[in-house]
């Protein structure tokens, strides 16, 4: 298992290969399509992270010192970004997730995706992922 920083580094390298926004967006769309499906029973309003435009469902499970996140979104681009976040944070231990600095978001030019004006719920998504981590770290 790679650390959060190692995975971030890989993602930054992946994105550095893209020549234009089309390639970047197509990659995000592919990631969205490939995201492991969330168990339908977790696709409930309690797990909904409300953004203004696209909906994101997030579920977290804690086992053997690690958090496994699963998620879904009704917009494929959002789902692609969600997939990257899961790639970085899922399977890590709670205290590392809680304190992780997600520098890759700026590095790969997704900062605009996270600005409040985009209102796609991703800021809330990261916050919710970290809140789960804080809650689970107290169980450790």
């Amino acid at each position, binding site marked *: 298992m790679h650390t959060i920083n190692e995975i971030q580094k890989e993602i930054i390298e992946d994105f550095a290969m893209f020549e234009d926004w089309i390639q970047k967006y197509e990659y995000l769309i592919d990631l969205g399509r490939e995201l492991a499906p969330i168990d339908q029973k977790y696709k409930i309003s309690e797990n909904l992270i409300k953004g203004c435009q696209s909906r994101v469902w997030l579920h977290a499970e804690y086992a053997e010192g690690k958090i496994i996140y699963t998620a879904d979104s009704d917009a494929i*681009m959002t789902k692609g970004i969600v997939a990257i976040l899961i790639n970085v944070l899922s399977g890590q231990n709670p205290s590392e997730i809680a304190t992780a600095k997600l520098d890759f978001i700026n590095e790969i030019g997704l900062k605009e995706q996270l600005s409040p004006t985009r209102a796609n719920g991703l800021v809330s998504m990261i916050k919710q992922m970290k809140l789960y981590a804080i809650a689970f770290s107290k169980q450790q």
Partner: protein
Amino acid sequence: MLDVSKIRSQFPILSRKVNGQNLVYFDNGATTQKPQIVIDAESKYYANQNSNVHRGVHFLSGLATDKFEESRSTIQNFIGAKHKHEIIFTKGTTDSINLVASGFKTFLNKGDEIIISEQEHHSNIVPWQICCEQSGSNLKVIPILDNGEMDMDFFYNLLSENTKLVAVSHISNALGTINNVEKIIEKSHSVGAKVLIDGAQAASHISLNMQKLDADFYCFSAHKMFGPTGVGILYGKEDILNALPPYQSGGEMIKEVSFSGTTYADLPHKFEAGTPNISGVVAFKSAIDFISNLEVNKIAKYEEELLQYATSELLKIEGIRIYGTSKKKSAIISFNLEGLHPYDIGMIVDKMGIAIRTGHHCAQPIMERFNIPGTVRISLAVYNTKEEIDLCINAIKKAKIMLS
């Protein structure tokens, strides 16, 4: 015929690039761009005329007051109001509606009814919900038909002697439907109800005459008609405005203040507490002049042409569904592509320099009505062109390919 390239040249922002592409601005329903004369009027005000209004005896105060009141007269003429003091400056349409809702609740008793429609923007829903909650009256809703028109028969059945106010939009911001407000006003008045029209989407697209229309209140925003943000208009008939209690209190709106009691100023100042957005109001006049020079009817005719063209081109895209297909429509087109989320489409076309709106357009009940999370919305203005529509359609097709 309008000289559209000449019109475009008056809007500096239209020549900027977005994401390396020429900007195609199709989000006019949210706000329009500003012509140079409006930008100049605002800066000229601060460079040359700035002072507080209706207060000082000095030269600049008089000048600023003259400019401010000149704006009021221009708006009075533009909407055909009977009196100048029927024009109240507010922060925008939302503020205008809140002003009326806040005062109107004092006229209401338990069991009274306010009617709105399913088509309304949140700003013409929530103030009435609060108004009803605080006065013990009931809110009734006119449903909309599949084509985006109000169900008028349903409306006629809702009307009764309990109806005290009917508040509906002139043009739906999400669907573009031009509502038959003349009929709504006539029928409402026949049961003694007052009528408020939310004209935010109509004011620069439809020729207005308040005396003919006979609405009791009419609200609109400067920024949706080439003017500055933060300026709105509440038109109200003199006798109703006189009866309506003040909204906000403070300076300007008083006649005499003492601790034994305060008397309020006459219209329009009674509703204009505090220092207003003077520069915005002054520059709004330039926006109205801009519209008047082009003539509203000519603008409407050109926008209709754009609407027809954009609609027929969009309908060529497989899997498209347009929401709002009424015969009388403003140049607003809301649509979805089968299987695609509006947000994804908006994200991709943005990269191609196309500014369109995606989401629920602050009209969630309509989205619920059609059982959709939102739509992609194109809203056109007089400076848009068929070439821009082609660019937009190509961008949408490109998005469709990427997302399918």
